[in-house]
């Protein structure tokens, strides 16, 4: 516990020194403002001017917005890891009792906790749409797992920050999954199942309506998330100096 506290203290110092925390807070707040105020406003305008009912897409919008914090936090964590690797901080921590696995577990669990929190706040303070609370646990777990997936995608493969940006851009493709799930009618859409958020979307649209399908999507989703995460973890642990 004391070891973890030391790491946390160092992080808090770092966070106040640069604007990472501002980025996290600001990004999340912008998201909240959008679901609280802008989407309802846009919805009323569209209905009024174009007779287009945005309300039909509320669940899709909430699902899409729920995926933004894990990607944002994942990218931030990924870049912190890259930065600390460049500065050889990871090498230092690796020789302390915390070890490299402890360092990684700490970094990733903090960002996962942040993702879960932001998901529940986003999902249950908006007046647009939500999935039954009873069925929210597994989607929340999957959403949280996307944070380390994004972080490790950047930290494992990128040689430096510039490549990190390129991989971050690539990770953005995961945002397409909800739209593919929703708009592609044929069974071809299941090809997008290699994108973890596809299954999160699946659980969103079956929770409370088609329970057997919900559980099927949950099991497959957890397996896919676990598998991707395990592979990335292995690559990261092995690739480091």
């Amino acid at each position, binding site marked *: 516990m004391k070891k973890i506290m030391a790491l946390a203290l160092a992080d808090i110092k770092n966070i106040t*020194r*640069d*604007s*990472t925390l*501002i*980025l996290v807070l*600001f*990004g999340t707040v*912008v998201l909240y403002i959008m679901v609280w105020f802008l989407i309802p*406003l*846009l919805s009323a*305008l569209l209905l009024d*001017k174009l007779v287009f009912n945005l309300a039909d897409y509320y669940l899709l919008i909430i699902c899409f917005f729920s995926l933004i914090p894990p990607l944002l936090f994942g*990218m*931030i964590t990924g*870049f*912190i890891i*890259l*930065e600390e690797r*460049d500065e050889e901080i990871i090498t230092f921590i690796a020789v302390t009792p915390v070890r490299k696995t402890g360092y990684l577990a700490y970094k990733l669990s903090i960002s996962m906790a942040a993702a879960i929190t932001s998901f529940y706040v986003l999902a249950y303070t908006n007046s647009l749409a939500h999935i039954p609370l009873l069925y929210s646990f597994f989607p929340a777990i999957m959403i949280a797992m996307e944070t380390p997936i994004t972080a490790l995608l950047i930290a494992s493969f990128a*040689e*430096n*920050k*510039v*490549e*990190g*940006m*390129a*991989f971050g*851009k*690539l990770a953005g*493709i995961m945002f*397409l999954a909800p739209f593919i799930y929703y708009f592609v009618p044929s069974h071809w859409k299941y090809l997008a199942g290699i994108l973890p958020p596809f299954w999160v979307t699946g659980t969103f649209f079956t929770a409370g309506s088609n329970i057997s399908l919900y559980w099927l999507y949950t099991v497959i989703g957890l397996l896919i998330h676990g598998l991707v995460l395990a592979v990335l973890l292995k690559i990261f642990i092995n690739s480091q100096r």
Partner: protein
Amino acid sequence: MRLLNAIHIDITFQFRHGFYYVYLFISVLYLLILFNLQQGIRETITLLLLFIDTTMLGFFFIGAIVLLEKGQNILQSLFVTPLRLSEYIIAKVISLSILAMASALIIVTPIHLSIINFPVLLFGLWLSVIFFTLFGLIIAARSQNVNDYFAKALGLGLVASLPLAQYLHIFSTPLFYVLPTRATLILLEAAVKPTGLLHIIYAFICLLVWNSLAAFLAYRYFYRHVLVGTGAL
């Protein structure tokens, strides 16, 4: 010649770091999606993608590029060579805008039949890409690390994106006309639907003014906050 070399090196660097592969992949993905959209909505979404992805390409990458060069002390060695700061900046801007324009050419193919003014689209996009790259350079000059750059870029990028509200018919105010992004959106729209000449002229002037200002500030900030620190003077 020096400038051409610098551009060549920047492009090689971007190629090696996978930019071209990533953008080829993403552009083709967009292409597939756009081809599957209905005719009516296709133009709107295409222009939206050009605005949020293509024009901001330089904005997205320049921070990490400059911070990496700063961190690896590349700038120290670079500026003891005859390379001038202005050439360094121009090379960055040109190299990233080549990638952005290539990606734009792929993305517009699904709507090529509706484009009535291709030169306006091309020049409008190009000027916007240049603006955002310079804007990124200004922010990068004062950033400590990538997350710091993100935070500043996100805040300023959101302000710059406000004219999207007018594009989406949510809200409009004459104040938007001060922003370069309003001009970008006017030129993007002018590519697919008839627009008054006055509007087009305003948009080009607006972008040129903003680009000059951004170029001036980028040079100055870079000189003050980056060059002085490298000891290359």
